[in-house]
């Protein structure tokens, strides 16, 4: 029983990485821009965050550095695709390739660098409850913050005026432009927010989740986050759910192996992907579910005045 509580606890951490990046990419895509550079931004932010913690000793400084680097790279990407109208997919892929190479280069001096040890997180009182304590109340603060963030995002997108404008920009940039909104500016802001969130996820990996720096350590989580936005049909709450599902199935796979369940580990490795297909099939039974939330002009360039 206790090992299941621990399994649940590690699922929350594993899901947090994915949820952070995917929530950022959601805002980005709601504005009509698809950024395939998530993996590259996360890698650059991972080394930036790691380096910042090595020099300052403060994890939050690392998060700040990661968010800054993520936002900066996303800003660059935004200038290219929004003003110069370069192809979004190609530019995003280029950003991923650039990020993988650049982070390796920037990280050369940090390969064996030491991080200060993390404090033990525990919410006083609650952390000592048997079973519930280890499962729910002994996590890094970011694990809770991401839940609050998802709630805030639901409110922002569906209850606030700014969220309405953002969605308008992603659905029909021409109409938003005609109404006098600065479509390019809003899109750039959304892309930079997405970059900052991917940056936070990257810094979380290298400073808290797997506190070390080695080249390529994000290991595909940027791509999973991108897939999650579609999987969740562009809904923040479903992104949170999907992130825990993905994180959880991976952990469950290892858990079953370690508890000696006689199942081929390769078979277990497939589980997260099988889960994705099952959910996508279920959703696709009603195509309106996907279309209802997908930003209509996702990935399409916008030329004002044409």
């Amino acid at each position, binding site marked *: 029983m206790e090992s299941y509580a621990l399994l649940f606890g590690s699922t929350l951490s594993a899901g947090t990485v994915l949820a952070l990046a995917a929530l950022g990419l959601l805002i980005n895509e709601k504005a009509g821009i698809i950024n395939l550079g998530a993996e590259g931004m996360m890698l650059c932010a991972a080394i930036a965050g790691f380096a910042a913690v090595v020099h300052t000793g403060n994890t939050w400084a690392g998060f700040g550095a990661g968010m800054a680097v993520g936002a900066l790279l996303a800003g660059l990407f935004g200038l290219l695709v929004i003003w110069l109208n370069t192809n979004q997919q190609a530019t995003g892929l280029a950003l991923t390739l650039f990020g993988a190479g650049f982070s390796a280069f920037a990280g050369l001096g940090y390969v064996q660098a030491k991080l200060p040890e993390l404090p033990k997180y525990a919410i006083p009182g609650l952390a000592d409850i048997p079973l519930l304590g280890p499962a729910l109340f002994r996590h890094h603060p970011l694990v809770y913050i991401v839940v609050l963030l998802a709630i805030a995002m639901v409110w922002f997108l569906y209850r606030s005026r700014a969220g309405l404008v953002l969605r308008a920009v992603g659905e029909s940039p021409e109409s938003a432009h005609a109404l006098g909104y600065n479509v390019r500016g809003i899109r750039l802001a959304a892309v930079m927010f997405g970059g900052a969130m991917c940056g936070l996820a990257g810094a979380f990996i290298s400073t808290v989740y797997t506190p*070390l720096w080695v080249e390529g*350590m994000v*290991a595909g989580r940027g791509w999973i986050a991108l897939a999650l936005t579609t999987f969740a049909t562009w809904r923040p709450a479903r992104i949170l759910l999907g992130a825990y599902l993905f994180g959880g199935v991976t*952990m469950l796979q290892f858990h079953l192996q370690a508890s000696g369940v006689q199942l081929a580990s390769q078979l277990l490795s497939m589980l997260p992907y099988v889960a994705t297909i099952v959910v996508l099939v279920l959703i696709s039974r009603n195509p309106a579910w996907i279309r209802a939330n997908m930003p209509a002009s996702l990935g399409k360039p916008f030329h004002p005045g044409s």
Partner: protein
Amino acid sequence: MTNLHKRSLLKAAALSAVALAALVACGKKEEAAAPAAAPAPEAAAAAEPLKIGFMYVSPVGDGGWTFQHEKARQALQAEFAGKIETSLVESVPEGPDAERVLRDMVGQGNKLVFATSFGYMEPVQKVAAEAKDVKFEHATGYKTADNVRTYDARTYEGAYLAGIIAGGMSKSGQIGVVASVPIPEVLRNINSYVLGAQSVNPKITARVVWVNEWFSPPKESEAATTLINGGADVLYQNTNSPAVLKTAQERGVRAFGKDSDMSAYAPKAHLASAEINWLPYYRKITQDTLAGTWSTGQDWWGVKEGAMDLVSIADDVPQELKDKVAAAKAGLKDGSFHIWKGPLKDNTGKQLLAEGANGDHAFLSGINFYVAGIDGTVPGANK
């Protein structure tokens, strides 16, 4: 019109030249061997230094496999200063790129080439057939030719020595391994680690979690977390990053470094590192080549040849265990001790080696079982 054409042609040529120069500059780091100061008359009269090329599969900053090769290359360069000139190309993918880089190394005048990854096997065979005057050294492969040798390290000896410490240090009696890909080399290491632990504590049990990847730090730490949640308190890994060690430190259990000395990553958790040292082999091959006695062959070096060692043993490991490690090491050195000797049974009770029999090379290359004491079944193994 013609003028315009000529100009754009020139422009294109200039651009590609710049791009080429940039590529070459990025992909390669050359190191001049001899000091640039006025050469002594003898040196000037002596033959040109032997050019040696190294081809790596990952960046030298990977902290493990390639990092160790690079350390040996630097030591070699220092030892043979003036007589050799080494260069390296890092992050060469296994495939067509490897062939191109090898050809380029031959074209640059390298007479000895070290290709340090299994997947370079076919490219090495191909280029070696064309460049008969160049000697090729291929790490972890099995195909040789008149001018191609293969070499490898007995990493399982390091795993066994680590196991001795694991067996003595585990309080729960349960140890764990984060494993990469189920191939004989990895299974040999896992089993050796457990055999080492059982040599100290026969009751020890072990669990294995497969990541099915060589390198994925987040997954490696998730796998380690699972083993710790299940009660394992000393971890070994056959993956390529220090993530397992780092996770062990966060969770207050112990673990080992592999391939390189990883004590710096997690000083509190680190028990020892099973380190590969390529220098003795590189030294011998360089001497042979310089003396003109190089010949083809297959080498598998371990503790005996100084290619494997257990380093940076933690201070809190009792002297008694350190002595046991030293005794096993001495036995491996003089050949009196065999890790793989009968009687040996797998975890289903099947007899693998009869009383008194030693596992030969064929046995070691075909390991696809867990020894008694490991829970579970080998993924994909025939039952």
